[in-house]
């Protein structure tokens, strides 16, 4: 693990959260992101960006994360949608 790799991991986590691929921590439960959850988030990001879905921070993924972009998230309100879906399922 080089300094650059370690820093990339941290930055990638921040990037995935910022653009909606990783849900923000719930202030009440404050769930920690799982390793599998992070891999899945990377896959979705890769699919959205037209990259091969590897689930790992490969060079293409890191390159895309460093690209100039709009600061709005790509995935909006995924957690809200999930909660609504769970609520509907419980009611049924």
């Amino acid at each position, binding site marked *: 693990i080089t300094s650059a790799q370690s*820093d990339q991991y941290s930055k990638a986590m921040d990037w995935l959260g910022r653009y909606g691929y990783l849900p923000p921590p719930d202030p009440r439960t404050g769930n920690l992101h799982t390793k599998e959850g992070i891999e899945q988030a990377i896959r979705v990001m890769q699919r959205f960006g037209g990259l091969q879905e590897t689930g790992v921070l490969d060079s293409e993924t890191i390159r895309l994360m460093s690209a100039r972009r709009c600061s709005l998230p790509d995935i909006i309100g995924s957690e809200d949608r999930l909660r609504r879906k769970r609520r509907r399922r419980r009611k049924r």
Partner: protein
Amino acid sequence: YALSGLKWHKTDLTWSVHSYPSPSQSPNLPDILVDNILRSAFKAWSNVAPLNFRHVATDSGGTAAGGDIRVSFNRLFHDDGYPFDGQGGTLAHAFFPGSAEVAGDTHFDDQEVWSYGGDSSSTDLFAVAVHEFGHALGLSHSSSDPSIMKPYYQGGVGDIVNFQLAVDDKLAIQQLYGVRDTAPSDGGDPHLPRLPSPPPPRPTQLSDPSFNERCQGGFDAVANIRGEVFFFKGAQFWRTKRDGSLVSNRPAQIQNFWMGLPPQTNKIDAVYERKSDSHIIFFIESQYWVFKDTEAMSGYPRPLSDWGMMRRNGQPVDKVEAAFIWAHNGKTYLFSGGEFWRFDESQKRQGVHIQPESGYPRDNSLWAGVPSHMDDIISWGEGDAYFFKDNFYWVLKNGGLNQEVVTPQSTAVDWLRCPAPPAEPTPVDPRFPKQCNCELNR
């Protein structure tokens, strides 16, 4: 395409420009050209949907302008919760339609080099403006190719007069506002209305009963886990995200979050995230736990003796005071009793306990300029090592071990969103009470 779920419930919209790109940063973009580029960007949308955009001017002071879509060029933190990041990275953002005061507002990062048909060293204002106005009208990011609503900057669009939206974008805007069947107005209006300025933002005042505990420092352990910094104190912890914000002002209970620690746990000695498998290691007194995410793995706690750390006086280590992975070399460092040990966990094999590298322990004083008995250490930022002690932290720049000057900074202020203490006169050095303490003229 993707829609935000929000739209304007009118088709005649006004826009205004609150500030223009700094001439020093974007010298080839006079204000009038910016107006024309923005007007053309709106026209890209009104060409295909029954929308009419009217430019409303600022007053003579250049500040009082209103309108549905307020455009400005801002730097870094600009009071909307979405700071810019200097040149590169994020370029702009816009707020979706709605009744909120900021709805439709569009902000461009003033530290970019904005251009009109410039080369790749600059950023084409028209392309970004069409994208952002798409948000201001209710569109979300699209993964479709081609689409102006892709989140990444795709370069200039060529001839802006004849620019046409991609099919994906046309369908999106027409889904919201219908199909235009008449020619759009050119957006000009000889009677430019003057609208009042919005009131200045008011900061929210929050009460926080755990304020003192958080702001007085003295953390038992500090760890960089999954890109966030965790501050452990007693039976509680706080979390700071990479953008500097706290997950919550209130602390979380260790017991309710980290499952598998003893019920009476009220002090964590050290924590770090192992990079080889993303497991999280907790040290409490003479034992350690390995966590997969937030649950302790079976078989733990294990005795600290697994780590094979012996003091120079031949005694086994019975407590770890600090632990971190130095981003500079990827090695793991454990600290105890003024000494430290180094481990290479990339060589770790399943079921085999790792041993310290030869030549260790070494004396903590090798880390010059930082306290020799620290509370904890993390790697952060650009691979720098952050040493925490009481309510201060010291930064050793990437790979540096022996910097000339390492100035302590406030943990509470810089990491835990605490207010800066009132300025006090420089304390007199107790060793030389009559001596001047001024560094500028000695």
